[in-house]
């Protein structure tokens, strides 16, 4: 019999003390149907959570659901069950990047202000040391779907605003997509980035700015083509069916007029930005009826009649409701979330199951039901992505088409987390790592454009990937220069740590690895588990073993020799293709 029987009663689900795998357990869980993330069903039902994850399964799950596995997290999950992990993560409090920006600002010498490094450092601080790993990991995924970028010369004047944008994504990561869409649309950083902040109604030859109207449809909600519930394109006469026309953009562009900086009044000066509220960079944009188009707004079959009195908030509510309720949203958004967390080429059935969770607002895993029951429930959607059989199936390690390239930021994060890296300053001073030839070629919140670092449909040309009709988004930033940049970044990092300062601010803790330096096979298996969930090839193991053995321990400075052995093993492991590709 499979282990993990759970009796349902009326108390909140709590994580049990560590248990052996396959042990039968009983614990009390919530009954309420109304509370998101709680258990539905009757009293004292037996719920089968299956077998606790193996160490490899736990490590693989953590590679998908967090910024990287480490030994203690693997051990913890190994003696638990996925639902407990999710409940703990859903309950973990959010740490705000905005607060970090305020704290850093307070320490800056007079005349200095925040720069991009501060925002990126705050990202790293939470990615590496934050307890709310799922929230942060999903927020990072969302930041690559709902893109704003410090590379924009206007946005980059508001570093705290960008930090708060990332907070907003994290806040709604466990909420509802409709609220997420509202948060994205109203955030002044998005308003600046896609230029609907300060956007005015038509007048003479002037027409409303169409930027946000276009991108909110193309990138954030419905995409270019009508989709089936499983994410495949609906075909009309054999051709894809476009979701919108330029007329829809013109109609929708009128909605996004009359929004600008928040503040205690709605004067023209505040709309135009000359009267400044000190919190305007982090407050949602407010409406200014004077500048809102009162013309009829017609888009996607929705009509907002001409308004006698301009009602920007009413127009926005109708428009966002219409977008949110478009049947494309679940499969369009769900597939991208799968691509960010699990695999570049999910099966249609997998996308369909995630879209179903999005539509119904619920996801059930072995009797554990998560979600509020409202369309767009993010907890249900995220859980559906991560607990789907296709995501959890360990035999997928042998599927030559499954998985995704770990983008450079995630590779560095996995290394830091696997080896307990800590920041001496506490501020994770890694900074911007944009340069592809000498660094990671990627920094959080610094995408080159609203189209992210890579497109979800990117196909690397002239490759077997293209021949197999697969997409590989992250390959868009893998090239002859960037592979060297990453290689040299890691060559220095494994030995000297990363970040500014001397010694460098962020240092790995290799004490567990150093203890295994005399025993290459044991160290290899440790790295194999933590970095690649047991997927290390025999060839890579041989190379690491040979390299470690090439450093003699029969020397005066055996400490340095042991360190060199660890450096070699870690560099080789983090350079191996089976690490670069997360399966």
């Amino acid at each position, binding site marked *: 019999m499979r282990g993990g029987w759970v009796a349902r009663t009326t108390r909140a689900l709590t994580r049990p003390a560590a248990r052996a795998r396959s042990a039968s357990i009983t614990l009390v869980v919530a009954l309420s149907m109304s509370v998101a993330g709680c258990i539905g069903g009757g009293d004292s039902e037996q719920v089968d959570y299956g077998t606790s994850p193996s160490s490899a399964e736990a490590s693989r799950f953590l590679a998908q659901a967090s910024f990287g596995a480490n030994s203690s997290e693997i051990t913890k999950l190994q003696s638990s069950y996925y639902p407990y992990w999710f409940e703990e993560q859903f309950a973990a409090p959010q740490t705000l990047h905005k607060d970090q920006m305020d704290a850093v600002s307070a320490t800056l010498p007079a005349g200095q202000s925040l720069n991009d490094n501060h925002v990126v450092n705050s990202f790293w601080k939470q990615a590496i040391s934050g307890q709310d790993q799922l929230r942060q990991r999903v927020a990072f995924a969302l930041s690559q779907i709902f893109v704003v970028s410090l590379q924009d*010369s206007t946005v980059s004047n508001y570093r705290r605003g960008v930090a708060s944008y990332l907070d907003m994504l994290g806040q709604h990561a466990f909420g509802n997509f409709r609220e997420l869409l509202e948060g994205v649309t109203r955030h002044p950083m998005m308003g*600046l980035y896609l*230029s609907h902040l*300060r*956007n*005015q109604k038509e007048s*003479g*030859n*002037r*027409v409303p*700015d*169409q930027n946000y109207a276009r991108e909110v449809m193309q990138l954030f909600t419905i995409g270019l083509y009508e989709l089936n519930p499983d994410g495949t394109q609906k075909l009309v006469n054999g051709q894809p069916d476009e979701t919108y026309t*330029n007329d829809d953009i013109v109609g929708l562009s009128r909605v996004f007029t009359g929004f600008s900086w928040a503040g205690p009044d709605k004067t023209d000066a505040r709309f135009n930005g000359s009267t400044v509220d000190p919190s305007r960079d982090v407050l949602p944009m407010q409406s200014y009826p004077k500048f809102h188009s009162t013309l009829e707004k017609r888009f996607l079959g929705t009509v907002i009649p001409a308004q006698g009195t301009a009602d920007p908030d009413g127009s926005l509510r109708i428009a966002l409701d219409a977008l949110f309720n478009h049947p494309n949203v679940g499969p369009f958004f769900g597939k991208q979330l799968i691509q960010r967390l699990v695999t*570049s080429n999910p099966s249609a059935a997998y996308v369909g199951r995630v879209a179903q969770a999005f539509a119904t607002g619920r996801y059930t895993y072995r009797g554990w039901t998560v979600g509020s029951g409202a369309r767009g429930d993010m907890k249900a959607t995220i859980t559906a992505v991560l607990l789907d059989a296709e995501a959890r199936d360990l035999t997928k390690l042998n599927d*030559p*088409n499954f*998985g*995704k390239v770990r983008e450079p930021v995630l590779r560095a994060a996995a290394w830091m987390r696997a080896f307990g890296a800590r920041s001496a300053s506490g501020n994770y001073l890694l900074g911007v790592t944009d340069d*592809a*030839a000498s660094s990671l070629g990627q920094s959080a919140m610094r995408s*080159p*454009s609203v*189209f992210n670092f890579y*497109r979800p*449909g990117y196909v*690397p*040309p*002239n*490759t*077997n*990937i*293209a021949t*197999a009709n697969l997409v590989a988004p992250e*390959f*868009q*930033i*893998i*090239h*002859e*220069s*960037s*592979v*060297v940049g990453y*290689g*040299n970044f890691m*060559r220095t990092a494994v030995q000297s740590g990363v970040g500014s300062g001397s010694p460098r601010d962020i240092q790995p803790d290799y004490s567990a690895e150093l203890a295994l330096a005399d025993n290459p096979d044991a160290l290899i298996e440790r790295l194999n588990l933590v970095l690649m969930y047991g997927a290390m090839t025999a060839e890579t193991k041989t*190379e690491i073993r*040979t*390299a470690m053995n*090439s450093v003699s321990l029969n020397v005066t400075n055996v400490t*340095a*020799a042991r360190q*060199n052995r660890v*450096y*070699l093993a870690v560099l*080789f492991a983090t350079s*191996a*293709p*089976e690490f670069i*590709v997360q399966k």
Partner: protein
Amino acid sequence: MTNQVSRRRFLKTASAMSMLGAGAPFALNLATIGAASAQVPDYRAIVCLFMFGGNDHTNTVIPYDLAEHTDYFNARTSIALDRNALTATAVGPVAAQGGRSFAFHPALTAFKQQYDAGKLAVVANVGPLVVPTTKAQYQARSVQLPPKLFSHNDQQSVWQANSPTGEGARLGWGGRMGDLLAAQNTDTIFTCISASGNALLLSGQNVIQYQVSSSGAVNFSALSGSLFGSASAGTAYRRILTRTTASHLFENEVSKVTTRSIDANEKLRVALAGAPALTTPIPVNNSLASQLNVVAKMIAVRNTLGAKRQVFFVSFGGFDNHDFLIDQHNQRMQTMNAAVNAFTSWMQELTIQNNVTLFTASDFGRTLTSNGDGSDHGWGAHHFVLGGAVSGGNVYGTFPVVRFGTNDDVGQGNLLPTTSVDQYAGTLGRWLGLTNTNVTTVLPNFANFGGSPYLGFLP
């Protein structure tokens, strides 16, 4: 004398090339020998300068005659440039455009100089088309149109693809040209080169684009010398990086890119070590100039690399000027002017200017209408072609009347292109060395644009 030598060498190469069979990329016909003879023998390159975001063409090349400028000014209102700011960059009258005069954006002073020197041409209102299209046909959707007009990522793709295809296109026209010309190069890898990341333009069926860093060759530090106290570990590390036996498609491809990187960067490192010094300084804080500088250096060592036909790609962004157009567009134009000016000097230092043609491209043009302080996504746009081989000092195509409601206006003053990207690309390709047949192989829709769709800016 030089003429004879180059002609003889040319014919020798021609017969050598013909040995390669029917698919051999050999192109130059007798009509082009005259032009070729004025050049360093056996080398030609085109350089695509892509302006990401959709350049505001309306403020890039502006009607300068008083009445026409007034129309422009009244149409654009708050985002129009004053006529008196355009005096220094005015060109014309242009006979080919009925004697009309134009002005470049005030920051494009070097472009004006090159135009006056006869080395820079303007191609007016060029954009993606499948067939020649009238406004009525566009409105009735009675002819095939490029997909997803006005969308950034799709139109970036459409511009670069060999036939108008939105995002997801696999083949770019530069890459297809490379396919047909690469056999002339010793190393196929140095045929299509991007200094700016993955570029669809350079994707061919056979050639694989090489992506060079602005700093030139980059090498894995762990592959040279002792690695963490081990003399042999570097070799093992190389095996980790270059093992291409994985069954997983992604893993294998990562290793292939890395293998290519190690090989090509080593060749480039050796070649660049012998590069002549360029004395014109690289404009500071100008990533476009840094990219063009590495292109110049690679052209400088073309013989060492065995390169005879090359397609380069450089780019910079920030052109999606929905807001703050006047200021932000001005910054972009200054950046481009400084970078292109330096590149022109580097080509002259290398006396290779007659063999290298730079051309601009962008997602799309932008609306004539203002949205307050910016413009929105459009279609047709004006572009520049620059180089010693260019028949410059002229405006090709048909420069539109800058008013609303014209036969070119498909809404908000967006331009229905009167010259197709295929014509633009085909003209560049023929100069690069494609036969007429090859041009239609590269650009399947080329023949839709008349009996001889070539534009006159290159022979």
